[in-house]
């Protein structure tokens, strides 16, 4: 597992303070992050691969300062977003999976080989040449996952990956996230997704208000919501 550290991280969008003085050390295999809309959790996880740079403080992944080594860090950290439609950047399923690899300068053979493997692993083999927009919502999220995991990152960050999916597809994505050997950091509102996780962090108004095993953290979060 990688070690991700937040050291006195604060962030503001203009006037609005979204994160205040976050100190975290993430080393567990499966970590969940929960919090209300606007609590700052999406901003927090975007700092892990440098999509958002903190106004103050530092974030690092395995000792690499994200602000200074964003490129290296992005190779270690894969990211999937809530809406797979906005994450698919190529016209067809196969091209989209290959996109990530092509940016890495791999040989054509290796790209084909790894793309094919990913297509099979995520049950998309029958759709290789199909236009990506014709996939169902669940398949699109599978494609997003495949396109990120094909590059073999050490950490996978997922920002509400099941919010737009129906219950069945949400469960499927949840099972996949749970079964992965990589370190997984998931932001979600769906507690079922966090079953079997090692640690859950609760964010409220830009600060950590609970942090521990899922049962305790989720109890604390429910109390907060009540």
């Amino acid at each position, binding site marked *: 597992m990688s070690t991700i550290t937040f050291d006195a991280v604060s962030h503001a*969008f203009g006037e609005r303070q979204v994160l205040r003085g976050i100190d975290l050390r993430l080393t567990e295999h499966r970590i969940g992050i929960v919090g209300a*809309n*606007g609590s700052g*959790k*999406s*901003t927090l996880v*975007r700092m892990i691969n*440098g*999509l*958002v*740079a903190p106004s103050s403080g530092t974030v690092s992944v395995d000792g690499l300062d994200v602000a200074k080594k964003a490129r290296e860090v992005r190779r270690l950290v894969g990211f999937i977003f*809530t809406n797979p439609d906005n994450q698919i950047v190529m016209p067809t399923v196969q091209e989209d999976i290959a996109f990530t690899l092509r940016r890495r300068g791999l040989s054509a053979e290796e790209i084909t080989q790894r793309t094919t493997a990913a297509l099979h692993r995520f049950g998309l083999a029958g759709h290789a040449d199909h236009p990506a927009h014709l996939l169902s919502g669940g398949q699109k999220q599978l494609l997003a996952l495949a396109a990120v995991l094909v590059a073999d990152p050490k950490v996978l960050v997922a*920002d*509400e990956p099941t919010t737009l999916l129906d219950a069945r597809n949400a469960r499927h994505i949840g099972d996949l996230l749970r079964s992965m050997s990589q370190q997984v950091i998931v*932001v979600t509102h769906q507690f079922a997704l966090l079953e079997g996780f090692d640690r859950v962090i609760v964010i409220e108004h830009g600060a950590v208000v609970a942090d521990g095993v899922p049962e305790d953290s989720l109890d604390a979060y429910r109390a907060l919501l009540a």
Partner: protein
Amino acid sequence: MTNRTLAARDLAHIAIFAALIAALGLPGALSIGAVAVPITFQTLGVMLAGAILGARKGFFAVALFLALAAAGLPLLSGGRGGLLWFTISPSTGYLYGWLLAVVVIGYLTARLLPKYPFWPAVGATALGGVVAVYLLGIPVTAINLGLPLWVAIFDSAKFLPGDLLKVVVTVLVARQVHRAYPGLIAPLARRSSSGTAPAQVDSAPTA
């Protein structure tokens, strides 16, 4: 990020607007008047690209759209595509006019921002979206059909009401968008206040 390479967000803006021009061609062409050059909302997309993305990104968006249509994708209104619309069709000149239009509108809009006053904006958008487009469109219609220029001019008048409406719509839309979403075009009027551009990916996430 150097000036020559386009940042990821710029690439996405360009692709989305090229796609928007294509999507606006879907409702289908409407032909009025004698020499049928179909009237569509695609010119609205072109004007919006200039007024919202600025000259550089807007130009790329229109050029990309035209290149895809020329390559044979049926993206021009009414499901047309292919090289003939860019060479021997009577409406050819109008398509090239779009490239000029988006640059004129983009450049002038950058000068009018951040205030973007209504009437000057209408003037700027009309100069690009109507004058520049017709300037290239009319002579080519005349040449490709072997007609005298005055017939082509007379014929183009049928576009005028629709195009003027699109000019006004463009300005009203651009106004709301620039207010809700500042920073799409760097204002040109003042000397650039050094390096205040935000990091291109540092936009507020939704949750």
